[in-house]
């Protein structure tokens, strides 16, 4: 099978635009051609810290003049991440990141100030990047919601104490978001309640079930249990796998759908190369 340019997402029109030349990228590590990268308008915004605007794209400039939010997200095993989102799509933004627990902590009139705040917060020691291999390896959130809320709140207060005075006016009463139904779905599938009493008369902590991590899928099949960002949790018979769907972007696939109850469910086949 082949891989072609996946086109780009137009953040202003809010729609996917397919690649005009359908550039063949089978032998390339990229999933987007140069032209589409430029057309998306954001190629020069990657890594922007808000100090000087690098972009020459009108689209990026329009987007950057929209109101923004700065968020703090919780990932499994106590990893906190800071990030920015255009206010009109802030929930989509955290969902596409797979951030199931987060707070919005500042609201700014544009993207530049949001980036400046983000960069200050990352200098305080909070990462602004969590890669997909971390997300695959840390797929199950063990902590209770209250603990996570408390952790986010403590970090919020500490950030507020340490951030530059000039940014404080953009801070808001933290807005909590959680997508408990998604994390519950993960736990329902991947946690095994221990039935054994331990020495102290209590139950042991639930143990994690094994799951396969598929970072470069070629042929996958199973029933989709849930989706976290770009990762899907597949169940096939009694085996679980977490698949990074991002690495399939651009590939020609043969997708077969079967209704629940039939023998097999979703099948993805990227086929022979």
């Amino acid at each position, binding site marked *: *099978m082949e891989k072609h340019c996946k086109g780009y997402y137009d953040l202003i029109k809010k729609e996917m635009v397919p690649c005009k030349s359908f550039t063949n990228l089978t032998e390339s590590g990229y999933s987007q051609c140069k032209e589409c990268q430029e057309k998306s308008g954001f190629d020069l915004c990657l890594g922007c810290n808000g100090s000087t605007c690098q972009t020459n794209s009108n689209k990026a400039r329009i987007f950057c003049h929209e109101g923004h939010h700065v968020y703090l997200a919780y990932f499994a095993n106590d990893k906190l991440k800071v990030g920015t989102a255009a206010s009109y799509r802030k929930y989509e933004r955290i969902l596409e990141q797979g951030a199931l627990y987060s707070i919005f902590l500042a609201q700014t009139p544009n993207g530049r100030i949001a980036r400046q705040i983000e960069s200050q917060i990352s200098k305080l020691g909070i990462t602004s990047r969590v890669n997909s291999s971390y997300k695959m390896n840390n797929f199950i959130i063990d902590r209770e919601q209250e603990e996570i809320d408390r952790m986010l709140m403590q970090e919020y207060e500490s950030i507020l104490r340490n951030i530059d005075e000039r940014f404080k006016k953009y801070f808001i009463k933290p807005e909590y978001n959680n997508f408990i139904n998604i994390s519950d779905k993960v736990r329902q599938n991947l946690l095994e309640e221990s039935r054994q009493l331990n020495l102290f008369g209590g139950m042991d902590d639930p143990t994690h079930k094994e799951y396969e991590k598929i970072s470069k899928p070629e042929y996958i099949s199973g029933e*989709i249990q849930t989706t976290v960002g770009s990762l899907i949790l597949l169940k096939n018979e009694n085996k679980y796998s977490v698949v990074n*769907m991002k690495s399939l972007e651009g590939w020609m696939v043969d997708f077969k759908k079967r209704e629940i109850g039939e023998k097999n469910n979703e099948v993805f086949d990227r086929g022979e190369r």
Partner: protein
Amino acid sequence: MGVKQFLGIKWINSNPQMLFYDNITHSIQYEDCNRNHRNKKDDGKTLQRVL
């Protein structure tokens, strides 16, 4: 469905969709990848505001 180009998962109105591009008809097809949540009473996100 036949061979199509996979464009990725997009979260649209808080629901994950798989996007497929048909290079012959030049159309994009959307496949829900959260079917299991659909049957539930509280579909989509649970937003909580505290303080």
